[in-house]
Protein backbone atom coordinates (compact mmCIF):
# COMPACT_ATOMS: atom_id res chain seq x y z
CA UNK A 1 0.00 0.00 0.00
CA UNK A 2 1.66 3.18 -1.10
CA UNK A 3 0.68 6.49 -2.60
CA UNK A 4 2.58 7.80 -5.60
CA UNK A 5 3.45 11.39 -6.34
CA UNK A 6 4.84 12.93 -9.51
CA UNK A 7 6.59 16.30 -9.24
CA UNK A 8 7.39 18.32 -12.36
CA UNK A 9 7.93 15.25 -14.44
CA UNK A 10 9.35 15.82 -17.92
CA UNK A 11 10.04 13.07 -20.41
CA UNK A 12 11.63 13.47 -23.80
CA UNK A 13 12.57 10.84 -26.34
CA UNK A 14 15.53 12.39 -28.08
CA UNK A 15 14.27 15.81 -29.11
CA UNK A 16 10.59 14.95 -28.84
CA UNK A 17 9.01 16.15 -25.57
CA UNK A 18 6.30 13.71 -24.61
CA UNK A 19 5.52 14.94 -21.08
CA UNK A 20 6.19 18.41 -19.76
CA UNK A 21 5.94 19.52 -16.14
CA UNK A 22 3.41 16.99 -15.02
CA UNK A 23 2.26 16.87 -11.42
CA UNK A 24 0.03 14.14 -10.12
CA UNK A 25 -0.83 12.32 -6.91
CA UNK A 26 -2.12 8.76 -6.99
CA UNK A 27 -3.94 7.75 -3.83
CA UNK A 28 -2.81 4.82 -1.82
CA UNK A 29 -4.96 1.70 -1.85
CA UNK A 30 -7.16 2.82 -4.73
CA UNK A 31 -7.74 1.57 -8.25
CA UNK A 32 -6.46 4.42 -10.43
CA UNK A 33 -6.85 4.27 -14.17
CA UNK A 34 -4.68 6.29 -16.56
CA UNK A 35 -6.73 6.59 -19.71
CA UNK A 36 -6.32 8.46 -22.96
CA UNK A 37 -5.73 8.08 -26.70
CA UNK A 38 -2.55 6.46 -28.06
CA UNK A 39 0.53 8.54 -27.49
CA UNK A 40 -0.93 10.57 -24.63
CA UNK A 41 1.86 9.49 -22.27
CA UNK A 42 -0.01 7.10 -19.99
CA UNK A 43 2.29 4.15 -20.58
CA UNK A 44 5.28 6.47 -20.30
CA UNK A 45 4.08 7.55 -16.88
CA UNK A 46 3.60 3.93 -15.84
CA UNK A 47 7.12 3.07 -16.85
CA UNK A 48 8.43 6.02 -14.87
CA UNK A 49 6.81 4.55 -11.75
CA UNK A 50 8.34 1.18 -12.61
CA UNK A 51 11.75 2.64 -13.25
CA UNK A 52 12.22 0.96 -16.59
CA UNK A 53 11.80 4.18 -18.55
CA UNK A 54 13.11 6.90 -16.25
CA UNK A 55 11.93 10.51 -16.53
CA UNK A 56 14.19 13.07 -18.15
CA UNK A 57 13.72 15.32 -15.15
CA UNK A 58 11.46 15.67 -12.15
CA UNK A 59 10.86 13.46 -9.12
CA UNK A 60 8.74 10.46 -8.44
CA UNK A 61 7.90 9.63 -4.85
CA UNK A 62 6.38 6.57 -3.34
CA UNK A 63 5.04 6.74 0.20
CA UNK A 64 6.87 10.02 0.58
CA UNK A 65 10.24 8.53 -0.39
CA UNK A 66 12.03 9.70 -3.53
CA UNK A 67 12.35 6.68 -5.79
CA UNK A 68 13.49 8.57 -8.90
CA UNK A 69 16.91 6.97 -8.92
CA UNK A 70 16.03 3.76 -7.15
CA UNK A 71 16.45 0.46 -9.00
CA UNK A 72 13.22 -0.97 -10.39
CA UNK A 73 13.48 -4.19 -8.43
CA UNK A 74 13.75 -2.37 -5.09
CA UNK A 75 10.64 -0.25 -5.46
CA UNK A 76 8.16 -2.78 -4.19
CA UNK A 77 6.18 -2.80 -7.40
CA UNK A 78 4.99 -5.45 -9.81
CA UNK A 79 3.99 -4.98 -13.42
CA UNK A 80 1.71 -6.83 -15.81
CA UNK A 81 2.72 -6.11 -19.41
CA UNK A 82 0.41 -5.80 -22.39
CA UNK A 83 1.88 -8.89 -24.01
CA UNK A 84 2.41 -10.54 -20.63
CA UNK A 85 6.19 -10.87 -21.14
CA UNK A 86 6.23 -14.42 -19.81
CA UNK A 87 9.60 -16.18 -19.96
CA UNK A 88 9.08 -18.54 -22.93
CA UNK A 89 11.75 -21.00 -21.93
CA UNK A 90 10.40 -21.59 -18.43
CA UNK A 91 7.22 -23.32 -17.38
CA UNK A 92 4.42 -21.61 -15.43
CA UNK A 93 5.78 -22.46 -12.00
CA UNK A 94 9.28 -21.26 -12.91
CA UNK A 95 7.82 -18.05 -14.35
CA UNK A 96 6.03 -17.28 -11.15
CA UNK A 97 8.88 -18.24 -8.87
CA UNK A 98 11.70 -16.53 -10.79
CA UNK A 99 11.54 -13.27 -8.85
CA UNK A 100 11.36 -15.03 -5.49
CA UNK A 101 14.37 -17.14 -6.27
CA UNK A 102 16.36 -14.08 -7.19
CA UNK A 103 15.89 -12.55 -3.76
CA UNK A 104 16.92 -15.77 -2.10
CA UNK A 105 13.61 -16.74 -0.57
CA UNK A 106 13.77 -20.19 1.06
CA UNK A 107 12.15 -23.03 -0.76
CA UNK A 108 9.19 -23.77 1.50
CA UNK A 109 8.15 -20.13 1.57
CA UNK A 110 8.36 -19.96 -2.22
CA UNK A 111 6.31 -23.08 -2.74
CA UNK A 112 3.66 -21.87 -0.30
CA UNK A 113 3.33 -18.55 -2.12
CA UNK A 114 3.15 -20.24 -5.51
CA UNK A 115 0.43 -22.55 -4.29
CA UNK A 116 -1.54 -19.73 -2.76
CA UNK A 117 -1.47 -17.35 -5.69
CA UNK A 118 -1.78 -19.86 -8.48
CA UNK A 119 -4.80 -21.05 -6.58
CA UNK A 120 -6.28 -17.58 -6.60
CA UNK A 121 -5.94 -17.35 -10.38
CA UNK A 122 -6.96 -20.95 -10.86
CA UNK A 123 -3.74 -22.19 -12.39
CA UNK A 124 -2.87 -24.97 -9.95
CA UNK A 125 -3.10 -27.67 -12.58
CA UNK A 126 -1.17 -25.73 -15.25
CA UNK A 127 2.06 -25.23 -13.33
CA UNK A 128 4.09 -27.64 -15.41
CA UNK A 129 3.03 -26.27 -18.76
CA UNK A 130 5.06 -23.86 -20.88
CA UNK A 131 3.57 -20.51 -21.94
CA UNK A 132 3.27 -21.60 -25.57
CA UNK A 133 0.80 -24.25 -24.48
CA UNK A 134 -1.53 -21.81 -22.75
CA UNK A 135 -4.42 -19.72 -24.06
CA UNK A 136 -4.35 -15.92 -23.94
CA UNK A 137 -6.47 -15.80 -20.83
CA UNK A 138 -4.31 -18.35 -19.05
CA UNK A 139 -1.14 -16.50 -19.96
CA UNK A 140 -2.61 -13.34 -18.56
CA UNK A 141 -3.34 -15.11 -15.30
CA UNK A 142 0.25 -16.34 -15.13
CA UNK A 143 1.40 -12.74 -15.53
CA UNK A 144 -0.97 -11.77 -12.72
CA UNK A 145 0.22 -14.53 -10.45
CA UNK A 146 3.83 -13.59 -11.14
CA UNK A 147 3.01 -10.04 -10.07
CA UNK A 148 0.98 -10.98 -7.00
CA UNK A 149 3.45 -13.43 -5.62
CA UNK A 150 5.85 -10.57 -4.98
CA UNK A 151 3.25 -9.03 -2.63
CA UNK A 152 4.02 -5.57 -3.93
CA UNK A 153 2.79 -2.28 -2.60
CA UNK A 154 1.83 -1.13 -6.06
CA UNK A 155 0.48 -3.09 -9.03
CA UNK A 156 1.17 -1.57 -12.45
CA UNK A 157 -0.86 -2.81 -15.40
CA UNK A 158 -0.24 -1.84 -19.00
CA UNK A 159 -3.40 -2.58 -21.01
CA UNK A 160 -3.49 -6.17 -19.73
CA UNK A 161 -6.89 -6.97 -21.21
CA UNK A 162 -6.41 -5.58 -24.72
CA UNK A 163 -5.23 -8.89 -26.18
CA UNK A 164 -8.18 -10.89 -24.89
CA UNK A 165 -11.44 -11.54 -26.70
CA UNK A 166 -14.46 -9.45 -25.71
CA UNK A 167 -16.17 -11.99 -23.48
CA UNK A 168 -13.01 -12.81 -21.54
CA UNK A 169 -12.28 -9.13 -21.20
CA UNK A 170 -15.56 -8.47 -19.44
CA UNK A 171 -15.01 -11.41 -17.13
CA UNK A 172 -11.45 -10.39 -16.27
CA UNK A 173 -12.58 -6.83 -15.57
CA UNK A 174 -14.73 -8.04 -12.74
CA UNK A 175 -12.00 -10.33 -11.45
CA UNK A 176 -9.44 -7.56 -11.38
CA UNK A 177 -11.77 -5.26 -9.44
CA UNK A 178 -12.37 -8.02 -6.92
CA UNK A 179 -8.68 -8.71 -6.71
CA UNK A 180 -7.88 -5.11 -5.89
CA UNK A 181 -10.48 -5.02 -3.16
CA UNK A 182 -9.18 -8.24 -1.74
CA UNK A 183 -5.49 -7.32 -1.77
CA UNK A 184 -6.09 -3.70 -0.86
CA UNK A 185 -3.00 -2.68 -2.83
CA UNK A 186 -2.61 0.38 -5.03
CA UNK A 187 -3.49 -0.45 -8.63
CA UNK A 188 -2.30 1.80 -11.43
CA UNK A 189 -3.99 0.64 -14.61
CA UNK A 190 -3.36 1.97 -18.10
CA UNK A 191 -5.91 1.63 -20.89
CA UNK A 192 -7.15 3.43 -23.99
CA UNK A 193 -10.64 1.99 -23.52
CA UNK A 194 -12.91 4.45 -21.73
CA UNK A 195 -15.43 1.73 -20.89
CA UNK A 196 -12.76 -0.15 -18.94
CA UNK A 197 -11.77 3.07 -17.23
CA UNK A 198 -15.30 3.95 -16.19
CA UNK A 199 -16.17 0.47 -14.96
CA UNK A 200 -13.02 -0.32 -13.01
CA UNK A 201 -11.65 2.90 -11.61
CA UNK A 202 -11.91 4.51 -8.20
CA UNK A 203 -10.08 7.44 -9.74
CA UNK A 204 -9.70 8.23 -13.42
CA UNK A 205 -6.77 10.26 -14.73
CA UNK A 206 -7.58 11.32 -18.27
CA UNK A 207 -4.57 12.31 -20.33
CA UNK A 208 -4.01 13.80 -23.75
CA UNK A 209 -0.74 14.79 -25.44
CA UNK A 210 1.25 14.47 -22.23
CA UNK A 211 -1.08 16.60 -20.13
CA UNK A 212 -3.65 15.65 -17.53
CA UNK A 213 -7.08 16.70 -18.78
CA UNK A 214 -8.97 15.79 -15.64
CA UNK A 215 -8.59 13.68 -12.54
CA UNK A 216 -11.58 12.48 -10.60
CA UNK A 217 -14.02 9.70 -9.86
CA UNK A 218 -15.97 8.25 -12.80
CA UNK A 219 -19.05 10.20 -11.73
CA UNK A 220 -17.16 13.47 -11.59
CA UNK A 221 -15.57 12.88 -14.97
CA UNK A 222 -18.88 12.01 -16.53
CA UNK A 223 -21.19 14.50 -14.85
CA UNK A 224 -18.78 17.38 -14.45
CA UNK A 225 -16.16 17.43 -17.22
CA UNK A 226 -13.55 20.18 -17.07
CA UNK A 227 -13.14 20.58 -20.78
CA UNK A 228 -14.31 19.57 -24.20
CA UNK A 229 -11.78 16.77 -24.51
CA UNK A 230 -12.96 15.09 -21.31
CA UNK A 231 -16.60 15.62 -22.21
CA UNK A 232 -16.18 13.94 -25.57
CA UNK A 233 -13.71 11.19 -24.64
CA UNK A 234 -15.95 9.60 -22.03
CA UNK A 235 -19.36 8.39 -23.11
CA UNK A 236 -20.64 6.66 -26.21
CA UNK A 237 -21.91 8.27 -28.36
CA UNK A 238 -19.82 11.30 -27.33
CA UNK A 239 -21.38 14.48 -26.01
CA UNK A 240 -22.97 16.66 -28.67
CA UNK A 241 -21.22 19.98 -29.12
CA UNK A 242 -22.72 22.97 -30.88
CA UNK A 243 -21.16 26.30 -31.72
CA UNK A 244 -23.04 29.39 -30.56
CA UNK A 245 -22.28 33.08 -30.90
CA UNK A 246 -19.65 34.82 -28.77
CA UNK A 247 -17.38 31.77 -29.00
CA UNK A 248 -19.62 29.85 -26.60
CA UNK A 249 -20.05 26.18 -27.11
CA UNK A 250 -23.07 24.25 -25.93
CA UNK A 251 -22.87 20.60 -25.01
CA UNK A 252 -25.38 18.00 -23.94
CA UNK A 253 -25.25 14.22 -23.77
CA UNK A 254 -27.27 12.03 -26.19
CA UNK A 255 -29.30 10.55 -23.34
CA UNK A 256 -30.25 14.01 -22.08
CA UNK A 257 -32.30 14.64 -25.22
CA UNK A 258 -36.04 14.05 -25.32
CA UNK A 259 -37.38 13.76 -28.85
CA UNK A 260 -40.79 15.39 -29.38
CA UNK A 261 -42.94 15.47 -32.45
CA UNK A 262 -44.49 18.75 -31.40
CA UNK A 263 -42.60 21.56 -29.76
CA UNK A 264 -43.83 22.19 -26.20
CA UNK A 265 -43.37 25.90 -26.76
CA UNK A 266 -41.06 26.77 -23.88
CA UNK A 267 -37.46 25.65 -23.30
CA UNK A 268 -34.67 24.62 -25.65
CA UNK A 269 -36.32 22.55 -28.41
CA UNK A 270 -34.82 23.27 -31.85
CA UNK A 271 -36.31 21.48 -34.84
CA UNK A 272 -34.54 18.94 -36.97
CA UNK A 273 -34.90 15.92 -39.22
CA UNK A 274 -33.89 12.37 -38.34
CA UNK A 275 -31.10 11.31 -40.70
CA UNK A 276 -30.24 7.82 -39.40
CA UNK A 277 -31.78 5.39 -36.98
CA UNK A 278 -29.87 2.56 -35.27
CA UNK A 279 -32.06 0.29 -33.20
CA UNK A 280 -29.80 -1.53 -30.75
CA UNK A 281 -32.40 -3.40 -28.77
CA UNK A 282 -32.74 -1.72 -25.39
CA UNK A 283 -32.00 1.72 -26.78
CA UNK A 284 -32.14 3.45 -30.14
CA UNK A 285 -29.61 5.94 -31.51
CA UNK A 286 -30.85 8.66 -33.82
CA UNK A 287 -28.82 11.21 -35.74
CA UNK A 288 -30.79 14.43 -36.07
CA UNK A 289 -29.86 17.21 -38.47
CA UNK A 290 -30.65 20.67 -37.13
CA UNK A 291 -29.87 24.14 -38.41
CA UNK A 292 -27.16 24.45 -35.76
CA UNK A 293 -25.55 21.09 -36.67
CA UNK A 294 -25.95 17.34 -36.28
CA UNK A 295 -26.65 15.73 -32.90
CA UNK A 296 -26.78 12.12 -31.73
CA UNK A 297 -29.74 11.08 -29.61
CA UNK A 298 -29.86 8.08 -27.30
CA UNK A 299 -33.52 7.24 -26.72
CA UNK A 300 -35.60 4.44 -25.19
CA UNK A 301 -38.33 5.22 -27.73
CA UNK A 302 -37.93 3.24 -30.93
CA UNK A 303 -40.95 4.80 -32.54
CA UNK A 304 -39.26 7.42 -34.67
CA UNK A 305 -38.34 6.78 -38.28
CA UNK A 306 -35.69 8.24 -40.55
CA UNK A 307 -36.91 11.33 -42.34
CA UNK A 308 -39.30 12.39 -39.58
CA UNK A 309 -39.30 15.98 -38.36
CA UNK A 310 -38.72 16.16 -34.63
CA UNK A 311 -37.80 18.60 -31.88
CA UNK A 312 -34.63 18.06 -29.88
CA UNK A 313 -35.48 19.06 -26.32
CA UNK A 314 -32.85 19.41 -23.60
CA UNK A 315 -33.51 20.68 -20.06
CA UNK A 316 -31.26 23.49 -18.86
CA UNK A 317 -29.80 21.55 -15.96
CA UNK A 318 -28.32 19.00 -18.35
CA UNK A 319 -26.55 21.53 -20.50
CA UNK A 320 -22.81 22.19 -20.39
CA UNK A 321 -21.12 25.37 -21.59
CA UNK A 322 -17.54 25.65 -22.82
CA UNK A 323 -15.51 28.62 -23.95
CA UNK A 324 -13.67 29.00 -27.23
CA UNK A 325 -10.53 27.34 -25.79
CA UNK A 326 -12.55 24.29 -24.77
CA UNK A 327 -12.59 24.94 -21.02
CA UNK A 328 -15.75 24.40 -19.05
CA UNK A 329 -17.80 27.35 -17.89
CA UNK A 330 -19.53 26.82 -14.56
CA UNK A 331 -22.36 28.76 -12.88
CA UNK A 332 -20.92 31.78 -11.09
CA UNK A 333 -18.47 32.61 -13.88
CA UNK A 334 -19.19 35.74 -15.89
CA UNK A 335 -18.84 33.95 -19.21
CA UNK A 336 -21.27 31.30 -18.04
CA UNK A 337 -24.00 33.89 -17.57
CA UNK A 338 -23.20 35.39 -20.97
CA UNK A 339 -23.61 32.05 -22.71
CA UNK A 340 -26.63 31.11 -20.63
CA UNK A 341 -28.38 34.27 -21.77
CA UNK A 342 -27.91 33.16 -25.38
CA UNK A 343 -30.35 30.42 -24.63
CA UNK A 344 -32.97 33.10 -24.66
CA UNK A 345 -36.16 32.44 -22.88
CA UNK A 346 -35.06 29.01 -21.62
Amino acid sequence: MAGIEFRNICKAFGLVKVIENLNLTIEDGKFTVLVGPSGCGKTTLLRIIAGIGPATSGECLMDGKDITDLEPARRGIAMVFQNYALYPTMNVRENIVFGLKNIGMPREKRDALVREYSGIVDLLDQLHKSPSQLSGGQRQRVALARAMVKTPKVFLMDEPLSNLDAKLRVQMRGELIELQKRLGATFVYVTHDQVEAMSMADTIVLMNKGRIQQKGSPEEIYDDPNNVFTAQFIGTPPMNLLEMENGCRLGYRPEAIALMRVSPGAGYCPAGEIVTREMLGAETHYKVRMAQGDVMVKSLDKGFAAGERVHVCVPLERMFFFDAQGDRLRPGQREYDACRRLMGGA
Partner: protein
Amino acid sequence: MNAHTRRRIRRTIRRLPGDALKLAVVLCFVFPFYWMICTAFKPYSEAISVPVTFWPRTFSLEGIASILSARSVDVMQYLMNSVVITFGTIALQMVIMIPAAYAFARFEFFGKNICFALVLLALMIPGQITYITVYLTMADRNLLDTLWPQILPFGANAFGIFLLRQGFKQIPEEIIESAQLDSASQVQIVMQIMVPMCRSVLLTIMLFSFVSSWNNYFWPLVMTNSEKVRPLTMMLVRVLDSELGTRWNEIMAANLLIVLPVLGVYVFTSGRIIKAFTYNGIK
Protein backbone atom coordinates in the same frame (compact mmCIF):
# COMPACT_ATOMS: atom_id res chain seq x y z
CA MET B 1 17.40 20.53 -18.43
CA ASN B 2 20.31 20.83 -16.13
CA ALA B 3 19.65 17.53 -14.37
CA HIS B 4 19.24 15.90 -17.73
CA THR B 5 22.59 17.05 -19.07
CA ARG B 6 24.22 16.20 -15.77
CA ARG B 7 22.92 12.67 -16.05
CA ARG B 8 24.17 12.40 -19.61
CA ILE B 9 27.63 13.58 -18.65
CA ARG B 10 27.72 11.14 -15.77
CA ARG B 11 26.71 8.36 -18.14
CA THR B 12 29.41 9.21 -20.66
CA ILE B 13 32.07 9.20 -17.95
CA ARG B 14 30.88 5.86 -16.63
CA ARG B 15 31.13 4.42 -20.09
CA LEU B 16 34.60 5.74 -20.84
CA PRO B 17 36.74 2.76 -19.74
CA GLY B 18 34.42 0.28 -21.47
CA ASP B 19 34.38 2.30 -24.65
CA ALA B 20 38.14 2.68 -24.59
CA LEU B 21 38.50 -1.07 -24.29
CA LYS B 22 36.04 -1.50 -27.16
CA LEU B 23 38.11 0.74 -29.38
CA ALA B 24 41.24 -1.16 -28.39
CA VAL B 25 39.61 -4.45 -29.36
CA VAL B 26 38.43 -2.97 -32.64
CA LEU B 27 41.95 -1.79 -33.27
CA CYS B 28 43.27 -5.31 -32.73
CA PHE B 29 40.82 -6.63 -35.27
CA VAL B 30 41.43 -4.04 -37.88
CA PHE B 31 45.14 -3.56 -37.43
CA PRO B 32 46.22 -6.51 -39.57
CA PHE B 33 44.54 -4.82 -42.52
CA TYR B 34 46.17 -1.57 -41.77
CA TRP B 35 49.45 -3.39 -41.52
CA MET B 36 48.81 -5.00 -44.89
CA ILE B 37 48.09 -1.67 -46.55
CA CYS B 38 51.00 -0.05 -44.76
CA THR B 39 53.42 -2.73 -45.87
CA ALA B 40 52.13 -2.64 -49.43
CA PHE B 41 53.19 0.97 -49.74
CA LYS B 42 56.62 0.58 -48.22
CA PRO B 43 59.76 -0.11 -50.17
CA TYR B 44 61.14 -3.58 -49.53
CA SER B 45 64.04 -2.23 -47.57
CA GLU B 46 61.81 -0.46 -45.12
CA ALA B 47 59.38 -3.36 -44.85
CA ILE B 48 62.04 -5.58 -43.39
CA SER B 49 63.82 -2.90 -41.44
CA VAL B 50 64.17 -2.85 -37.69
CA PRO B 51 62.77 -1.11 -35.71
CA VAL B 52 59.32 -1.48 -37.23
CA THR B 53 57.68 1.66 -38.59
CA PHE B 54 53.94 2.08 -38.19
CA TRP B 55 53.74 4.50 -41.05
CA PRO B 56 55.75 4.32 -44.29
CA ARG B 57 58.77 6.55 -43.88
CA THR B 58 59.06 6.49 -47.62
CA PHE B 59 55.79 6.16 -49.43
CA SER B 60 56.53 3.79 -52.29
CA LEU B 61 54.63 2.15 -55.08
CA GLU B 62 57.46 -0.31 -55.56
CA GLY B 63 55.45 -3.32 -54.49
CA ILE B 64 52.43 -2.52 -56.58
CA ALA B 65 54.47 -1.69 -59.65
CA SER B 66 56.37 -4.92 -59.32
CA ILE B 67 53.20 -6.92 -59.15
CA LEU B 68 51.54 -5.19 -62.04
CA SER B 69 54.60 -5.34 -64.24
CA ALA B 70 53.93 -8.99 -64.82
CA ARG B 71 57.50 -9.94 -64.21
CA SER B 72 56.79 -13.34 -62.90
CA VAL B 73 53.07 -13.30 -62.50
CA ASP B 74 50.53 -12.27 -65.10
CA VAL B 75 48.21 -10.30 -62.87
CA MET B 76 45.68 -9.49 -65.54
CA GLN B 77 45.22 -13.16 -66.36
CA TYR B 78 44.56 -14.03 -62.76
CA LEU B 79 42.22 -11.09 -62.39
CA MET B 80 40.27 -12.00 -65.50
CA ASN B 81 39.91 -15.54 -64.29
CA SER B 82 38.62 -14.44 -60.91
CA VAL B 83 36.12 -12.10 -62.51
CA VAL B 84 34.83 -14.62 -65.03
CA ILE B 85 34.60 -17.40 -62.48
CA THR B 86 32.82 -15.27 -59.91
CA PHE B 87 30.29 -13.68 -62.22
CA GLY B 88 29.75 -16.88 -64.13
CA THR B 89 29.02 -18.70 -60.90
CA ILE B 90 26.57 -16.06 -59.73
CA ALA B 91 24.74 -16.09 -63.06
CA LEU B 92 24.50 -19.87 -63.13
CA GLN B 93 23.29 -19.93 -59.55
CA MET B 94 20.55 -17.43 -60.31
CA VAL B 95 19.23 -19.54 -63.16
CA ILE B 96 19.18 -22.68 -61.05
CA MET B 97 18.21 -21.19 -57.72
CA ILE B 98 15.16 -19.08 -58.60
CA PRO B 99 12.97 -21.85 -60.07
CA ALA B 100 13.98 -24.29 -57.35
CA ALA B 101 13.22 -21.87 -54.54
CA TYR B 102 9.92 -21.03 -56.21
CA ALA B 103 8.99 -24.70 -56.38
CA PHE B 104 9.89 -25.37 -52.75
CA ALA B 105 8.12 -22.27 -51.55
CA ARG B 106 4.81 -22.42 -53.33
CA PHE B 107 4.10 -25.89 -54.59
CA GLU B 108 3.16 -29.20 -53.07
CA PHE B 109 4.54 -32.28 -54.73
CA PHE B 110 5.51 -35.81 -53.88
CA GLY B 111 9.01 -36.03 -52.49
CA LYS B 112 9.28 -32.30 -51.80
CA ASN B 113 10.71 -32.82 -48.36
CA ILE B 114 13.26 -35.37 -49.49
CA CYS B 115 14.53 -33.10 -52.22
CA PHE B 116 14.74 -30.21 -49.80
CA ALA B 117 16.64 -32.41 -47.39
CA LEU B 118 19.11 -33.08 -50.19
CA VAL B 119 19.56 -29.34 -50.59
CA LEU B 120 20.25 -28.96 -46.87
CA LEU B 121 22.67 -31.87 -46.97
CA ALA B 122 24.59 -30.20 -49.76
CA LEU B 123 25.06 -27.25 -47.42
CA MET B 124 27.15 -29.40 -45.14
CA ILE B 125 29.27 -31.40 -47.56
CA PRO B 126 32.67 -29.81 -48.00
CA GLY B 127 34.67 -29.55 -51.17
CA GLN B 128 37.51 -31.41 -49.52
CA ILE B 129 35.61 -34.65 -50.10
CA THR B 130 33.77 -34.12 -53.34
CA TYR B 131 36.72 -32.74 -55.28
CA ILE B 132 38.27 -36.14 -55.85
CA THR B 133 35.41 -37.41 -58.01
CA VAL B 134 34.76 -34.07 -59.64
CA TYR B 135 38.40 -33.84 -60.66
CA LEU B 136 38.31 -37.29 -62.24
CA THR B 137 35.07 -36.47 -64.05
CA MET B 138 36.46 -33.19 -65.37
CA ALA B 139 39.70 -34.88 -66.37
CA ASP B 140 37.78 -37.51 -68.31
CA ARG B 141 36.05 -34.83 -70.31
CA ASN B 142 39.20 -32.78 -70.90
CA LEU B 143 37.80 -29.79 -69.10
CA LEU B 144 40.72 -29.23 -66.79
CA ASP B 145 42.20 -26.59 -69.03
CA THR B 146 39.08 -24.47 -68.86
CA LEU B 147 37.30 -22.44 -66.21
CA TRP B 148 34.31 -24.80 -66.16
CA PRO B 149 35.49 -26.97 -63.26
CA GLN B 150 35.49 -23.85 -61.11
CA ILE B 151 32.02 -22.72 -62.08
CA LEU B 152 29.80 -25.75 -62.69
CA PRO B 153 30.19 -27.56 -59.35
CA PHE B 154 28.87 -24.50 -57.55
CA GLY B 155 25.80 -24.14 -59.72
CA ALA B 156 23.41 -25.39 -57.07
CA ASN B 157 23.74 -22.84 -54.27
CA ALA B 158 22.10 -24.63 -51.36
CA PHE B 159 22.36 -21.64 -49.05
CA GLY B 160 20.73 -19.47 -51.70
CA ILE B 161 17.88 -21.89 -52.34
CA PHE B 162 17.22 -22.05 -48.62
CA LEU B 163 17.15 -18.28 -48.10
CA LEU B 164 15.23 -17.50 -51.28
CA ARG B 165 12.60 -20.11 -50.45
CA GLN B 166 12.06 -18.33 -47.15
CA GLY B 167 11.80 -15.00 -48.97
CA PHE B 168 9.27 -16.36 -51.45
CA LYS B 169 7.23 -17.92 -48.67
CA GLN B 170 6.76 -14.57 -47.03
CA ILE B 171 5.03 -13.06 -50.03
CA PRO B 172 1.31 -12.88 -49.27
CA GLU B 173 -0.86 -15.33 -51.17
CA GLU B 174 -3.20 -12.53 -52.33
CA ILE B 175 -0.60 -10.81 -54.45
CA ILE B 176 0.08 -13.96 -56.42
CA GLU B 177 -3.60 -14.75 -56.76
CA SER B 178 -4.41 -11.34 -58.15
CA ALA B 179 -1.57 -11.75 -60.63
CA GLN B 180 -3.05 -15.07 -61.70
CA LEU B 181 -6.42 -13.38 -62.13
CA ASP B 182 -4.62 -10.93 -64.39
CA SER B 183 -3.61 -13.92 -66.55
CA ALA B 184 0.05 -13.65 -65.74
CA SER B 185 2.13 -16.62 -66.77
CA GLN B 186 4.24 -18.46 -64.22
CA VAL B 187 7.38 -16.88 -65.58
CA GLN B 188 5.89 -13.42 -65.30
CA ILE B 189 4.75 -14.05 -61.76
CA VAL B 190 8.17 -15.13 -60.66
CA MET B 191 10.30 -12.65 -62.55
CA GLN B 192 8.13 -9.56 -62.40
CA ILE B 193 6.52 -9.87 -59.00
CA MET B 194 8.20 -12.30 -56.67
CA VAL B 195 11.83 -11.65 -57.51
CA PRO B 196 11.58 -7.85 -57.23
CA MET B 197 9.87 -8.25 -53.88
CA CYS B 198 12.78 -10.31 -52.61
CA ARG B 199 15.42 -7.84 -53.72
CA SER B 200 17.20 -7.65 -50.39
CA VAL B 201 17.37 -11.41 -49.99
CA LEU B 202 18.75 -11.81 -53.48
CA LEU B 203 21.35 -9.14 -52.89
CA THR B 204 22.42 -10.85 -49.70
CA ILE B 205 22.71 -14.18 -51.49
CA MET B 206 24.71 -12.61 -54.31
CA LEU B 207 27.03 -10.97 -51.85
CA PHE B 208 27.77 -14.24 -50.09
CA SER B 209 28.18 -15.96 -53.41
CA PHE B 210 30.59 -13.33 -54.59
CA VAL B 211 32.68 -13.51 -51.45
CA SER B 212 32.69 -17.28 -51.48
CA SER B 213 33.69 -17.53 -55.11
CA TRP B 214 36.24 -14.73 -55.17
CA ASN B 215 37.98 -16.02 -52.06
CA ASN B 216 38.04 -19.66 -53.09
CA TYR B 217 41.49 -21.18 -52.78
CA PHE B 218 41.16 -24.90 -52.18
CA TRP B 219 39.00 -25.63 -55.19
CA PRO B 220 41.14 -23.84 -57.80
CA LEU B 221 44.16 -25.48 -56.22
CA VAL B 222 42.90 -28.98 -56.77
CA MET B 223 40.96 -28.42 -59.97
CA THR B 224 43.59 -26.73 -62.08
CA ASN B 225 46.95 -27.76 -63.42
CA SER B 226 47.91 -24.75 -65.46
CA GLU B 227 48.40 -21.17 -64.34
CA LYS B 228 46.31 -19.71 -67.10
CA VAL B 229 43.05 -20.80 -65.53
CA ARG B 230 43.93 -19.94 -61.97
CA PRO B 231 42.31 -17.07 -60.04
CA LEU B 232 43.84 -14.32 -57.93
CA THR B 233 43.98 -16.34 -54.73
CA MET B 234 46.50 -18.64 -56.31
CA MET B 235 48.64 -15.77 -57.39
CA LEU B 236 49.80 -15.14 -53.85
CA VAL B 237 51.58 -18.44 -53.59
CA ARG B 238 53.34 -17.73 -56.88
CA VAL B 239 54.54 -14.38 -55.66
CA LEU B 240 55.94 -16.09 -52.64
CA ASP B 241 57.76 -18.66 -54.67
CA SER B 242 59.09 -16.45 -57.38
CA GLU B 243 61.70 -14.30 -55.67
CA LEU B 244 64.78 -14.88 -53.63
CA GLY B 245 63.76 -14.11 -50.13
CA THR B 246 60.17 -13.22 -49.44
CA ARG B 247 59.33 -9.77 -50.71
CA TRP B 248 56.60 -9.01 -48.22
CA ASN B 249 55.78 -5.64 -49.62
CA GLU B 250 54.96 -7.25 -52.96
CA ILE B 251 52.90 -9.94 -51.28
CA MET B 252 50.91 -7.35 -49.39
CA ALA B 253 50.46 -5.37 -52.60
CA ALA B 254 49.10 -8.53 -54.22
CA ASN B 255 46.80 -8.97 -51.24
CA LEU B 256 45.43 -5.49 -51.85
CA LEU B 257 44.27 -6.63 -55.25
CA ILE B 258 42.42 -9.55 -53.72
CA VAL B 259 40.98 -7.72 -50.75
CA LEU B 260 39.86 -4.38 -52.16
CA PRO B 261 37.30 -5.64 -54.70
CA VAL B 262 35.53 -7.65 -52.02
CA LEU B 263 35.43 -4.73 -49.63
CA GLY B 264 34.19 -2.54 -52.46
CA VAL B 265 31.39 -4.93 -53.35
CA TYR B 266 30.47 -5.30 -49.69
CA VAL B 267 30.22 -1.57 -49.14
CA PHE B 268 28.25 -1.21 -52.35
CA THR B 269 25.73 -3.96 -51.66
CA SER B 270 25.22 -3.54 -47.94
CA GLY B 271 23.94 -0.04 -48.58
CA ARG B 272 21.66 -1.40 -51.28
CA ILE B 273 20.53 -4.23 -49.04
CA ILE B 274 19.46 -1.80 -46.35
CA LYS B 275 17.68 0.32 -48.94
CA ALA B 276 15.93 -2.75 -50.30
CA PHE B 277 14.92 -3.70 -46.78
CA THR B 278 13.26 -0.36 -46.17
CA TYR B 279 11.58 -0.49 -49.57
CA ASN B 280 9.93 -3.78 -48.72
CA GLY B 281 8.91 -2.51 -45.34
CA ILE B 282 6.85 0.37 -46.65
CA LYS B 283 4.60 -1.85 -48.72
